[in-house]
């Protein structure tokens, strides 16, 4: 009996130890497996990760300078990431992991706009994080892709990436028309003019009688009324989609827990 009990005790201990080992392995495995071949942010100040080799050496260095300059203007990091082998990651996942990793190591700007080109699937993806997420929501990500789509499609990658930087900077610095200084100044002047005009018009006294002043309520009223329902017409309209291809609206979240905006499609 005792022996049997002892044997069982040992076996359960072993079992649990094995379980912990397996669990730990399962947890770490994807990280180990995929991170073996992933592109990681090398250091702060590197903006081009051209793993797919779409650019020549001179193009890469000039693009790098260009992205840095645009990023300074825009007040955020502007990154271009390419790959020809995304591994098991599909869609937005690659760029999300890229950002998560860069965030953890502190080697990427927390406010960032990223362009990802997957040459294997011919998939393009734009994501914006932090401050940039407010300025560049999903629809704007999509608009950026629209702007560079032709260049990407026909293989003018350098132009496409420069175009991406331009657009990112433009949208980051974009001020809606009603927030622009001259528009507001004009509006203020118009309001001032209207107010003074009303004051001047009212300086001579205003009409204070209205339609009810002289109405004799005792002898006035509705003598006959009808409200007959005739018919109903219903117009149906499809709900506008938040984003045409990245699917679904609202904010996206990376596995590292970073909320961002995103749009992507095949090119």
């Amino acid at each position: 009996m005792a022996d049997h009990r002892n044997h069982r005790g040992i076996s359960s201990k072993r079992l649990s130890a094995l379980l912990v080992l397996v669990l730990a392995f399962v947890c770490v495995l994807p990280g180990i497996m995929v991170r073996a071949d992933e592109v990681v942010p090398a250091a702060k100040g590197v903006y081009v990760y051209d793993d797919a080799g779409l650019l020549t050496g001179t193009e890469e260095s000039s693009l790098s300078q260009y992205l840095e300059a645009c990023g300074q203007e825009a007040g955020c990091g502007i990154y271009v990431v390419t790959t020809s082998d995304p591994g098991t990651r599909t869609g937005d996942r690659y760029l999300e992991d890229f950002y998560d990793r860069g965030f953890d190591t502190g080697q990427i700007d927390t406010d960032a706009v990223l362009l990802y080109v997957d040459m294997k699937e011919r998939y393009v993806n734009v994501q914006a994080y932090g401050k940039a997420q407010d300025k560049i929501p999903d629809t704007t990500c999509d608009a950026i892709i629209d702007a560079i789509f032709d260049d990407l499609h026909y293989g003018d990658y350098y132009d496409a990436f420069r175009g991406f930087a331009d657009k990112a900077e433009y949208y980051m610095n974009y001020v809606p028309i009603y927030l622009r200084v001259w528009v507001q100044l004009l509006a203020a002047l118009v309001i001032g003019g209207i107010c003074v005009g009303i004051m001047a018009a009212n300086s001579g006294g205003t009409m204070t009688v209205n339609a009810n002043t002289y109405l004799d309520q005792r002898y006035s009223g509705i003598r006959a009324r009808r409200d007959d329902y005739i018919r109903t017409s219903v117009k149906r309209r499809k709900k506008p989609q938040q984003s045409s291809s990245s699917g679904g609206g609202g904010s996206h979240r990376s596995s590292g827990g970073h909320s961002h905006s995103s749009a992507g499609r095949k090119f």
Partner: protein
Amino acid sequence: MVVQYKCPGCGADMHYDAKTRKLKCGSCGRLMEIDAMPRSSADAGTEAEDSEDGEISPFAAEEIEDEAEFGRIEREEGSTAFDGEDGCQYVCNNCGAVVVTTADTTATSCSFCGAPVVLGDRLSGKKAPVWIIPFKVNKEQAKAAFRKWCGGGKLTPRDFMTADRIKNITGMYVPFWLYDMEGTGEADCTATRVRTYTQGDYICTETKYYHVYRRLHMAYCKVPVDASEKMNDGMMDKLEPFGYGELTRFNMPYLAGYLAEQYNYDDRELLPRVTERVKRYANEYLASTITGYSTVAYNRKNIQLDPVNARYTLLPVWMVCYDYRDSEHIFAMNGQTGKIVGKPPLSKQKIAMWFAGISAGVFAVMRLVTMFLA
């Protein structure tokens, strides 16, 4: 004929006192109830009343006619000394001086001795007012109120605000017609109720159509229309509303001490004006009964308004003449409520100041909001 009110105590001239609402003797302060005075209604012969009063007019009607003839002849001969259109000349009972009047004057004061004079014959027959709202704001109150009003003007020049150049302030009974109108309004419309809801992937806009019909009976009471040629219509309209609770039957003593005019336009002539105005009100009333719809389109609308009656009424107005930089500004004050209308001079400097101030303020707020949003 000239009507003047003498104090039974001392024989001095009496005038209407807005504070006590009685006739007051300027000399001994004696007060007399106006209701105790004989009425001077349209039906009662004013001559008979006047002769009852005894003291009032030394002239008989014929004599006045004579004078009138005389006046006409004078004018035909080329004299310009006399400006009364109907050629009547009135003589002050006190001093015998000719009372200077225009053709429309019904009450004034003797330009020579200052005694209040009421021209009784111009207030009788067809020209007898039915109602009157006596002055409630007296001269001192009117002046004070005007000064206060000038000071409160946001765009008036600083030197205007002191209001120390009131050239003259005249209490005047302005002739009005008070119309009672009655009629029906009919409207036949197609109205819709619009509702939006989502159903799956679709946004549905549901429009329900209704046939709406309304028939109203409406009565408008005592809509005032200024019947004096001299008075600016817009200004008189703005003086409203008058409190009709104080509407009393007309009696001549109310005019003692004030200016008064008779109407230039009779109730028929002014009917289009009042009809146009009441139609506007009726339209609003009709529209206000059709509620609960998103849109209303009229297929047919018919408003029929008929005058029930029109009553000749005198309403109290203080006219203030004000000299400012060589030009005269005229203001009118409701003699019952104290409401003031009239175009005050506008200071360019103050307009610029307000304009700059408001614009700068609005701009600052906008920038702040922008910074907050960014």
